[in-house]
């Protein structure tokens, strides 16, 4: 694996893009661009990452990019890579078939994009799907998504979200695809390594990147990476990868999963953000915190169980 000093000079996302300062999507996308290299094509669905490109005729993304409609990321990347593969077979292009990847948010992955994504995974199409997960529809002004944590306030769950989030990475894993990983902007070297690994694998690859959004989660932009670190340390976000069904853990998740370390206090992670204010001030605070912790413990137990399972 290339050390950070050997990473390519290639910048997928150019300076002057329209993202918020401290945007975690842009941070992750920059790393993805360096790991994939220049022979790649990006498919997007509506998201902050599309808005960040800027206004036509300018473009902040230095890569061939197609913005398809919201429900269609999975199939669109499938179709583009199939089109490239057959064009190379027919001799219209020479050299390596470009890597085709999706860059979508949690809406385009967990919710409106799920049907088409699930089908692409079931077909094991040769694509790399990224979900930058900021746990809300940030682009439209912070509404709940299937990735929003329980009790988090959004504009459509102003009293706090009543239900737990979906466990989408494990749902994708059960599509029996060759590679599924979670990552975080807290550890860009881990992300880089996972992207590099996924790029070399034939078939369907899924990488979900935890991307704390300061405007949605109500914290200071400068704390973006620190919040992402707290998420991993507290067990609110798990770092793991499943390569041909061999599951391994990374970073603080590895220590927690191996019992070498207790997760750090969840309250510290939650109270560093404004979106849990109502939970933290609620008379049911202790009961609800206990439930959140139990859910996170359940998620860890489930993936550990899955890692031990040899079918």
């Amino acid at each position, binding site marked *: 694996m290339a050390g950070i000093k050997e990473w390519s000079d290639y910048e997928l996302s150019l300076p002057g893009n329209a993202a918020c300062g401290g945007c975690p999507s842009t941070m992750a996308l920059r790393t993805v661009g360096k790991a994939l290299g220049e022979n790649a094509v990006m498919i997007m669905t509506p998201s902050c990452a*599309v808005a960040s490109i800027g206004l036509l005729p300018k473009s902040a993304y230095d890569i*061939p*990019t197609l913005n398809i*409609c919201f429900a*269609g990321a999975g199939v669109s990347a499938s*179709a583009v890579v199939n089109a490239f593969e057959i*064009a190379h077979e027919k001799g219209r292009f020479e050299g390596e078939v470009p890597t085709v990847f999706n860059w979508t948010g949690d809406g385009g992955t967990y919710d409106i994009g799920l*049907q088409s994504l699930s089908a692409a995974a*079931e077909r094991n199409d040769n694509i790399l799907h990224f979900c930058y997960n900021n746990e809300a529809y940030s682009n439209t002004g912070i509404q709940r998504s299937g990735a929003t944590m329980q009790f988090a306030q959004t504009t459509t769950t102003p009293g706090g979200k009543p239900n737990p989030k979906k466990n989408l990475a494990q749902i994708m894993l059960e599509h029996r695809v060759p590679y599924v990983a979670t990552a975080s902007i807290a550890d860009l070297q881990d992300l880089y390594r996972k992207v590099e690994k996924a790029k070399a694998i034939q078939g369907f690859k899924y990488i979900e990147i935890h991307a704390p959004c300061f405007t949605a989660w109500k914290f200071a932009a400068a704390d973006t990476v620190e919040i992402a670190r707290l998420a991993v340390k507290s067990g609110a976000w798990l770092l793991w990868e499943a390569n041909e069904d061999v599951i391994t853990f990374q970073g603080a998740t590895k220590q927690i999963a191996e019992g070498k370390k207790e997760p750090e206090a969840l309250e510290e992670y939650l109270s560093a953000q404004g979106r849990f204010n109502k939970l933290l001030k609620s008379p049911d605070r202790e009961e609800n915190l206990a439930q959140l912790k139990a859910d996170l413990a359940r998620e860890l137990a489930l993936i550990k169980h899955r890692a031990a399972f040899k079918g």
Partner: protein
Amino acid sequence: MGINTNRTKLDTGNNACAEAVKLAAPDIIAAYPITPQTSVSEKLASYVDEGVLHARYIPVESEHSAISAVAAASAAGARTFTATSSQGILYMNEILHYTAGGRLPVVLVNVNRAINAPWCLYVDHQDSASQRDTGWLQLYAGDNQEIHDYVLLAYRTAEEAMIPTMVCYDGFLLSHSMLPYEPIEEEIARKYLPDRDPDWCLHPAYGRKTFAQVTPAFEYSEFRKRLAQESALALDVIKDRGAELDALTGHNVCSHVKPYRNEDADYLIVSMGSMGVEAEMSADILRNQGIKAGSLRVRTFRPFPAETFVELIPEGTSVIVLDRNYAYGTGGGIILQELKEALYGRKVSVRIAGTSIGVGGMELPAQHMADTVKDVILSAWNDKI
């Protein structure tokens, strides 16, 4: 038709369609099953599986994904194909708009079927006619030869105009009915339709271009204005490429409108799809009753061939439009509205009336159609017939 009987085949409309798609040599095919389209995509899947068609067949999980697949593959430089019917084309609606706006030369076959609710399996034109304003070009075949030939015409037109094109034909009446047609020879098809050679596509070999960013009002309005203008101009593309195809095949099936006994007619019946056959028969019946009737069958519906109708409908003629659809809230059908718009201010003494018939697969025997025409004439104008 100039058909060489030695080469004539007897086959269903769906098979005649699939044979033409094979001749067009698409790279990417994606479809979701729906009656009565299903056997088109099944046939193509087997062609790919047998290796007689060098393409990728993507067995998608929905029509929304089918049209998204061909739109994205088209942006990646591929020649593409999808087929659908009824609810399927309605579910595609969002991406139909996207495909036209993106100037992606996708070809789609819609096998016409009534739409839900209530649930119905049989033919009418509500499904595709209601996609009128998506920006797509629409051709309607009246028999299996036209289905076969229009598929190739659709590819030539779409790739020249850079506007997606759909070929529509009647569910069951054509899709599942064995009718004679003469397949186009492979050599002629290759000559008429060489491989697609895109000016631009997503492949990095074409440079790093984005089709993704937010478009300001002025640029957006320019994109849409060009689509509107060039859609109208596509009438000439369809006409010229149709004439070219007819010259190569000798089939003589390509024109915007198919006229029948129109030249001395007092009454002209306008229809679309396979019911045009019964419209011609009912013109004969009416003539036997002393009513000088003729028929004009719409083949090109989008863009609407207004000039052709202006030429074919002389002053003093009365026009009866039989729509296999409804334009809800207007009292008539969609073609009636289109034709009124086409003739408004162009003809001073042409009368137009119409009705919706044959919806949901109601059978249209020629005698019944002739009676319906007389009913319209009496109720609209009270002519002495």
